[in-house]
């Protein structure tokens, strides 16, 4: 209807339609994350978290990688939760690891990956996705321990880190405590939603306006297929609980490329690029994006050359 240059054809009604459907799909999970964040703020004693995590910073990062198994949150909901946990004193490195791993190290995601790849090396795919996601998230957390939180977090979060005032005063009435939790949830939800709306807009534009056939010729090259599927994962911005169903249909692509799609997408898709802005500095997000792209790309490429029989 409007611009048309071969691979790009933008239609406003289509954009609007995809935009709203992404919002309606992701919003419940974002809201769920924000409500969890409000409950954590009001009811989780700050000391509990520091007591539970190992003292050694590296061990603490490893432990955070598995938090997703206990608190399964998908990638839309994780940002408000991590933001709140870091305000409550969770070390930034652990926060980054939990944020990156939770959408993959997650019981629901494991099951959906198994189901989606039925008949195409489901067990190998699921295990590799889990292990690769976990180790990349831990690696990112370790790298973060070498930097000061000041260079990683957004300004307002730095002041607040660890400045919890024990709102959880049990002497107040339950209704007052719920009121507090609700106020935190509202603030978090609306803060993060701004980024979510912008991210959904970017994703909707790409999924409707870009001709998806342009990536097909790339399928035959081991390196380009991995890079292009990571790009596609970002563009589609599908929730990590369902992305495996999409990946399984990209039959012309090698398994290594599908693995890259499944690991990179939940860590860094288009809407997340904006959502992370609610907690992290722009410089950190850009470094993270570049780092993840290369680390995941190279690991998948190496796995692809190993001839694992998939």
């Amino acid at each position, binding site marked *: 209807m409007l611009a048309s240059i071969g691979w790009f*054809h933008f239609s406003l009604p289509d954009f*609007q339609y995809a935009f709203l459907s992404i919002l309606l799909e992701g919003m419940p999970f974002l809201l769920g994350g924000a*409500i969890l964040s409000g409950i954590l703020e009001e009811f989780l004693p700050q000391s509990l978290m520091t007591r539970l995590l190992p003292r050694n910073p590296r061990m603490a990062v490893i432990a955070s990688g598995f938090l997703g198994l206990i608190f399964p949150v998908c990638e839309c909901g994780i940002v408000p939760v991590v933001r709140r946990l870091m305000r409550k004193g969770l070390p930034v490195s652990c926060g980054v690891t939990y944020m990156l791993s939770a959408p993959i190290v997650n019981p629901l995601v494991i099951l959906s990956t198994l189901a989606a790849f039925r008949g195409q090396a489901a067990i190998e795919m699921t295990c590799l996705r889990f292990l690769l996601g976990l180790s990349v998230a831990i690696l990112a957390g370790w790298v973060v321990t070498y930097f000061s939180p*000041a260079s990683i977090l957004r*300004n*307002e979060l730095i*002041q607040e880190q660890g400045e919890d005032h024990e709102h959880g005063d049990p002497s107040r009435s339950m209704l007052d405590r719920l009121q*507090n939790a609700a106020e935190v949830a509202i603030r978090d939800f609306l803060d993060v939603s701004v980024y979510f709306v912008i991210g959904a807009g970017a994703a909707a534009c790409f999924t409707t306006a870009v001709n998806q056939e342009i990536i097909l010729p790339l399928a035959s090259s081991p390196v380009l297929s991995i890079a292009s599927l990571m790009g596609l994962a970002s563009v589609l911005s599908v929730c990590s609980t369902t992305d495996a169903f999409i990946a399984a249909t990209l039959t012309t692509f090698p398994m290594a490329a599908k693995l890259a799609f499944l690991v990179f997408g939940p860590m860094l898709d288009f809407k997340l690029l904006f959502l992370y802005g609610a907690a992290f500095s722009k410089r950190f997000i850009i470094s993270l994006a570049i780092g993840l792209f290369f680390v995941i790309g190279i690991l998948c490429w190496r796995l692809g050359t190993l001839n694992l029989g998939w």
Partner: protein
Amino acid sequence: MTASFRTLRDFVLLLLWGTFVLWMDLSKQLSTYLHPSLQPYTVGAGVLLIILAIFSLRSLLKGTGAPHECCHHDHSCSEHDHPHSHHEHHDNCAHDDHESHHGHDHSASEKHEHDDHHGEHDHEKEHHHHHGEATGGFSLLFKTLVLLLPLAGVVLGQSNHYTMSTIANRGVVQDLSKLPSAKGAPLTAVPSASPESATSSNSPSDEGTSASGAGAMPIQVIDMLYAVQMPTYREEFDGKQVELVGQFVPLTTGNPKGDRFQAIRLFITCCAADAKPVGVTIQYDKPLKVSEMGWVKVTGTPTFPMEGGRRTAVLVANKVEECAAPDEPFVY
């Protein structure tokens, strides 16, 4: 004053969003956006949004807008003893003083930070009313506008279907192996008898196709694609008249005589944003005037010729007529 204004804004936004989501559900529009399994979450979120709106109304009436952020931000200038945030505290103090022309006399990197996050100084706003009203107000306004964007469609007119533009960009799938969840499922499905077949959720009788069919068997687009893969299923169609409902999409390749078009349905994994067009080729030699993406009911004989080295599904039609969109617009 500003704090309660903000709480009022929160209340209005939550109420609008919640009402919008519930209205989408009650007016049956949600099903044109989301997979059925995801709709309950969205409806639940709509209810929660209304509940949160009530909480924000309560804090508005009590005049305690956002008490938490108060204690966090009050010391942003006085507290310089935090282990690793010296520099940043300083930044923020300087920043408060210069809010109206933010970034002016900061170093390059600081300026970068501030510019990136301009529009985010609302926290300061609540507690430093005396400076920077303009920037804080702008930030709040900007965020509020962004959050109202999703509702713009209600006022400006909303689209709840795709045009040819997106269909062309996505390409029509005619090979079932390129369709999510199609794997495994058809192998266990016994043609036309099994309720487990992928068409069960969209049984043709739901769509009113069976009523008019004078002897024609109502089928789905996807049934013919299964038949392409399974010889036993193909036999079911031998010599039978079928009718199917789909959206009209012109066929640009493999259409030398110009007597072919495609009838497509949209296959959804979780929401309309991931819709994949699936279609069968229809051969119809009479002139046809249907708009692109218009719904058509096609009656004819299914054939499964080998074309270009692979088996395809072509429905040789003897009647094509425009029809109303089915209640269930998608296949899952």
